[in-house]
């Protein structure tokens, strides 16, 4: 019994009748072992490629979302580079540990919403989430070239959703895209018109003191901080002013804008 030579032990095992208990157990063990090695090997070797695939898919979805928004695709084509999604904590102006995948569930928790006082609530939101998902476009060198900030607020007939694109200085508007609105067609509904949106690129957000000056003008724009109002749609024009001022101000993306200007991203 003390024969420890593995070759003879192996032969002896194979020579056992198939029905013997030892051989049954040994075969079960060996088959399981070989299969385990196969499965683990495949998983471990292929995991990096699969992770890259998933990341690429997410990127493609994001790009499809952005390029579905008129005006944005042009900006992206112009600046090139790669787009990344970051969930930021608005109060701190820093990346949060919530991921885009868990953002929806985090926002279901009422603790992650802050009620806004009447003085703060320029955009007519009532409450504001603690987290927001923003998009960074980095150029080939890895420097931030464009920041896309989703904004929203009450319009004349219903909520207006938009994405503001800011240049890396975080003070120059690169573009605006309206992603959702229900304003009066032909009047306030003209916020969607490319001709009106074309005024936004190049406008400044805040002055040297840091106060947000951007506005939709009553009549014609008279400064770098203004765009022309929409004739016959004063309420919508004002809503756009307030949405931009709220989100680009201290209660909105203000802390994030400061952090980016300090070079924290």
């Amino acid at each position: 019994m003390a024969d420890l030579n593995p070759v003879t032990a192996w032969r002896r095992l194979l020579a056992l009748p198939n029905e013997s208990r030892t051989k049954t157990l040994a075969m079960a063990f060996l088959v399981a072992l070989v299969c385990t090695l196969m499965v683990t090997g495949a998983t471990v070797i292929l995991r990096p490629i699969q992770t890259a695939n998933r990341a690429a898919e997410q990127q493609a979805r994001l790009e499809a979302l952005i390029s579905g928004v008129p005006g944005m695709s042009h900006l992206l084509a112009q600046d090139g580079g790669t787009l990344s999604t970051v969930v930021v904590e608005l109060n701190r102006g820093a990346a949060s540990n919530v991921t885009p995948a868990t953002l929806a569930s985090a926002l279901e928790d009422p603790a992650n919403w802050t009620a806004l006082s009447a003085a703060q609530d320029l955009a007519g939101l009532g409450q504001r989430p603690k987290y927001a998902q923003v998009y960074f476009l980095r150029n080939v060198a890895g420097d931030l070239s464009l920041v896309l900030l989703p904004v929203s607020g009450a319009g004349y007939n219903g909520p207006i959703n938009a994405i503001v694109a800011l240049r890396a200085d975080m003070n120059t508007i690169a573009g605006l895209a309206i992603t959702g609105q229900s304003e009066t067609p032909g009047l306030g509904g003209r916020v969607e018109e490319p001709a009106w949106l074309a005024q936004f690129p190049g406008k400044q957000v805040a002055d040297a003191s840091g106060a947000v000056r951007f506005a939709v003008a009553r009549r014609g724009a008279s400064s770098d901080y203004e765009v022309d109002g929409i004739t016959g749609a004063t309420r919508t024009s004002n809503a756009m002013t307030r949405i931009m001022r709220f989100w680009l101000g201290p209660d909105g993306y203000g802390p994030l804008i400061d952090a980016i200007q300090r070079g924290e991203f």
Partner: protein
Amino acid sequence: MSATPSLRSILIAPLIRQNPVTLQILGLCSALAVTTSMQTALTMCAALTAVLVMSAGLISVIRRHIPDTIRLIVQIVIVASLVIVIDQILQAYLFEISQKLSVFVSLITTNCLVLGRTESFSRHNPPLRSMVDALGNGLGYSLVLTVIGAIRELFGAGSLLGWQVLPTVEQGGWFTPLNLMLMAPSAFFLLGGLVWAIRSVLPEQVEELEYHSPDDPEASA
């Protein structure tokens, strides 16, 4: 079974005469689910054929040493492991298609076709013959899936392998896609039609009726 048929006949028999899907009606679940387009159908065929051939080979190699008491478990474990490996490879190199195939690749494990071949053939035949038999059955399965996939994609979307063959109305053509073709029932109809067509040509495949109703004059005669 006749005494040791040639490798050639082992390979060719399952294509039509002994086709696993249309004659033995095995592996239907996936045949119905993944045939909405030819691309998914072909990928599924390749995956199933690969699993079938490899599991047949492996089981045939150890066929003399599989204890009878645990033979099904041993076979299932081998098949399942191969399926996982194939699934991982698809997810790594054919990511988009693997998303479309979703759970059906994993379900190859329970595809009766695989276990059917390993249990009935690979356990009693040497590796080469087993693998040729598995390849034949895989190709037979592939043939049916390809035919059904082609019909469903052609009439459901007006295209073949993604190439637009019939210009659809949406694109300014004349063809209105039959949405029914993209739904599961159409695969039943087509498969039924295919089985009927094959059995009309090869009447020896027609099965005996298992049950005659009492007032059936033919039965009482």
